[in-house]
């Protein structure tokens, strides 16, 4: 029996607003418990929600980036259930009329492109946190997170493998960070994934019963959890069993999914429009304004890099992986007044190599784009050789000096004066008759010896190109 896997993902992205979606408390991560939970967040009697403008903007920005319909009229609804981290006993979310409608995201798996549909994206408030350990059999509730704006992004069940699911999740992760609407920090819970997984016999139209795996917080775990779940389901079905529609948790230690034992049956959330909030109207003018301010999206940027900077797929991907990386590169290109190729090789080679070795991100690079550009400029205009440039790079990494200052201070200027080089070459040829003999008799390798000697004599500062040319001439 051939089985087909069907996966849909629900991603909760915490929007990077300063204050909460319905109150003026801070959303900053890591504060001591309950110090960022104001009266509205705590659900005190009589408090009322007021909607954060920026949360709406960010939702619209996202919608436009995935080419989705933006609902001109959307409604907040109450999702009713009891849990101690949900202060009001209901979550303010969106149900029948979400702010963002159908859109799509293109992914690449093994060089094959696929379009994944996004059913909808809606705004809602996050709940607080429960701490089950350390309180003598009680649970501690921290409501700092309660009220943080979330964008819940629901995909169509278009993915057919764990790999596709991971590719989609990564693409979405990159996109929200590109758009600066979410910091994507999965450790801190800013980007959370629930996976709906089912299997069906290949060729069957109807979907099989699905299980929902909740709250997976890394790309690696998403892949593993889905793979385990698919195996589990196929196993059950092949043995004549039935899949139970339920919520499961992924246990990373054991690499398995487990059913969340719940006393109640499926929750009846009793959704109804929240009477404390009025319908959200997104004016055409706001959409136009946002469209105009929309940053160049990753896909378009990558294509442009390939075209504009003559880069191949891999290089362009690497340099447009994040907005920061792409901006850095382009700032170098803008300031360096040289061929893009040189910038490319230095950024992807030397710079990234150094950053990786020291575990730094591009935004923490000790060498700013403008400074690096200054260095590349001096290579391009022949002031120093590539080899010497590497030395200068080291110096720049350690301190704040720019390339010119270091070249000056260390007297690293390349010797291009043909007269001077000639003189040195003449001396070396004169001093090494044996090697000359060897070279002229056909031992080409000896050429390197002469190059080495010239370089030694000039402390590496002789222009290699000139040296080669002249040596060739003189050693005829």
């Amino acid at each position, binding site marked *: 029996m051939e089985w087909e896997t069907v996966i849909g993902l629900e991603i909760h992205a915490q929007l990077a607003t300063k204050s909460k979606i319905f109150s003026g408390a801070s959303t900053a991560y890591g504060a001591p418990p309950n110090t960022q939970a104001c009266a509205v967040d705590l659900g005190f009697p009589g408090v009322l929600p007021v909607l954060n403008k920026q949360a709406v903007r960010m939702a619209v920005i996202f919608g436009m980036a995935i080419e989705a319909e933006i609902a001109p009229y959307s409604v907040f609804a*109450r999702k*009713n259930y009891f849990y101690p981290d949900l202060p009001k006993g209901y979550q303010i979310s969106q149900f029948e009329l979400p702010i963002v409608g159908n859109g799509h995201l293109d992914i690449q798996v093994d060089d094959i492109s696929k379009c994944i549909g996004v059913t909808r994206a809606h705004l809602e408030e996050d709940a607080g946190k429960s701490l089950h350990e350390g309180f003598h059999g009680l649970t501690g509730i921290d409501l700092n997170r309660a009220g943080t704006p979330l964008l819940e992004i629901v995909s169509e069940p278009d993915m057919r493998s764990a790999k596709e699911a991971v590719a989609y999740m990564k693409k979405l992760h990159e996109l929200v960070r590109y758009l600066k609407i979410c910091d994507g920090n999965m450790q801190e819970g800013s980007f959370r994934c629930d996976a709906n997984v089912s299997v069906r016999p290949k060729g069957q139209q109807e979907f099989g019963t699905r299980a929902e795996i909740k709250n997976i917080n890394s790309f690696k775990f998403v892949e593993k959890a889905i793979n385990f779940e698919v195996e589990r389901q196929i196993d059950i079905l092949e043995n004549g069993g039935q899949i139970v529609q339920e919520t499961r948790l992924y246990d990373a230690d054991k690499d398995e999914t487990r059913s969340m034992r719940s006393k109640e049956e499926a929750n009846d959330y009793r959704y109804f429009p929240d009477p404390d909030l*009025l319908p959200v109207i997104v004016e055409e003018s706001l959409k136009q304004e946002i469209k105009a301010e929309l940053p160049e999206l990753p896909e378009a940027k990558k294509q442009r890099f390939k075209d504009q900077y003559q880069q191949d797929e891999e290089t362009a991907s690497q340099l447009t992986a994040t907005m920061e990386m792409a901006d850095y590169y382009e700032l170098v290109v803008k300031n360096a007044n040289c061929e893009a190729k040189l910038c490319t090789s230095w950024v992807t080679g030397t710079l990234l190599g150094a950053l990786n070795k020291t575990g730094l991100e591009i935004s923490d690079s000790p060498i700013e784009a403008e400074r690096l550009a200054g260095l590349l400029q001096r290579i391009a205009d022949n002031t120093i050789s590539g080899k010497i440039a590497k030395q200068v790079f080291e110096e720049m990494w350690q301190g704040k000096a720019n390339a010119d200052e270091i070249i000056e201070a260390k007297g690293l200027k390349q010797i291009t004066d043909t007269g001077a080089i000639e003189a040195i070459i003449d001396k070396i040829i004169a001093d090494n008759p044996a090697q000359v003999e060897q070279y002229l008799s056909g031992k080409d390798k000896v050429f390197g010896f002469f190059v080495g000697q010239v370089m030694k004599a000039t402390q590496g500062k002789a222009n290699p190109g000139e040296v080669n040319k002249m040596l060739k001439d003189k050693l005829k």
Partner: protein
Amino acid sequence: MHNKTIAELARGLRDREYSSVELTQHFLNRIKQANSLNAFVTITEEQAMIEAKAADEQIVKSQAGPLTGIPIGQKDIFCTKDVKTSCGSKMLDNFISPYNATVVEKFDQAGAVMLGKLNMDEFAMGSSNETSFYGPVKNPWDISKVPGGSSGGSATAVAARLVAGATGTDTGGSIRQPAAFCGITGLKPTYGRVSRYGMIAFASSLDQAGPMTQTVEDAAIMLQAMAGFDPKDSTSVDQPVPDYLEVLEKDIKGLKIGLIKEFFAEGLDDECAKKVEAALDEYRKLGAEIKEISLPNLKLSIPVYYVIAPAECSANLSRYDGVRFGYRCEDPKDLNDMYIRSRGEAFGAEVKRRILIGTYALSAGYYDAYYIKAQKVRRLISEDFKKAFSDVDVIMGPVTPSTAFGIGEKTSDPIEMYFSDMYTIAVNLAGLPAISIPAGFSDNKPVGLQIIGNYFAESQLLNVAHQYQKVTDWHQQLPEQFA
């Protein structure tokens, strides 16, 4: 002093006939003497004297406003910072509010002196003030009768002259009905006119705060302080607040008054009907034109209300779970036990009934048939009113089907109780402003006249009501023992 209106007291204070401290002490004494009426849950004696002193300083500096130094009562549904706010419930018996409702802030800024928090039906659910955790409030005209509800404490306090004015809230008639039962003036403004921030929510799309006073002029003074846009309330309307006193004296010749045919159908007590007819005659004498209008969907107000209000309240009351404030049961076994027993032990029967109906109406399978259907019929009722207002300027009719009934008389049948609101409920569904003013007595018990205005037409409403009070003196009457 206690039989003076707010307007008169303000003049007296300004002319230094007495001080706010004296006035406040006077009312506090009366409150203590009238303890058996059970109008108050909390009396804030110390704080009141501090506020009175501060008010006197303002008065001396000639910096007093129309409410500076005036002693008022706040319905215990308004959150008052550092003062117990119970909402008439055991659930909040231990709740000392950490913040002020916007309405409370506004009165503070206006220099009014708060004497205390007034008793009410539990979570504003009731029409007789008999569901309060703190016991029933007595009607000062006849202490064997109810004052009405849910703002029963407020109505009683004003009628017995224990306060110069009081705040109330109205979701289905909770200002107007007690005002009628107690022979005072009670105004429910247009939905969105007064901020709901800090006003403990019952049914969010119906609740509205308003003044309860001896006279229409006083209601205008209080409304002036209460009304206005509040950025903390998303449902608050950003419309400028007019000068409500400005047009009080306007002549009402040619005013077109609509009389709802459906209001004079069965259910209305004969004597009440007679008093309303007599009031209409006064209006004819003042030059108004009366025409009959029909609001065909009005009869569905009660069923619609008893789906929408409970549905909204069932969610609004979910926050009372014993986790962060309020009542928590002893020794909960586990989380569910804590929820179930805390809520079970702290909510009264009427509140439970409404939470259950509301939960049911919203539950899977019933949402369309009940909740959505009710919202649709609500729109039909609103459209009926809109159509009527294209034809008339104001609408008049009775407030209640009868005068105040006996304490304990209707408590065994909740549905019978619901019908006390049959004339008031539709107004909340449509969100219109309405006022109840005293229009006479039946069997020594007050009868009220209801006047309904168009959206944000409080000025006209107050003007029309005030003109009646200039040619009658029902509003000046009070129970003998409280004179």
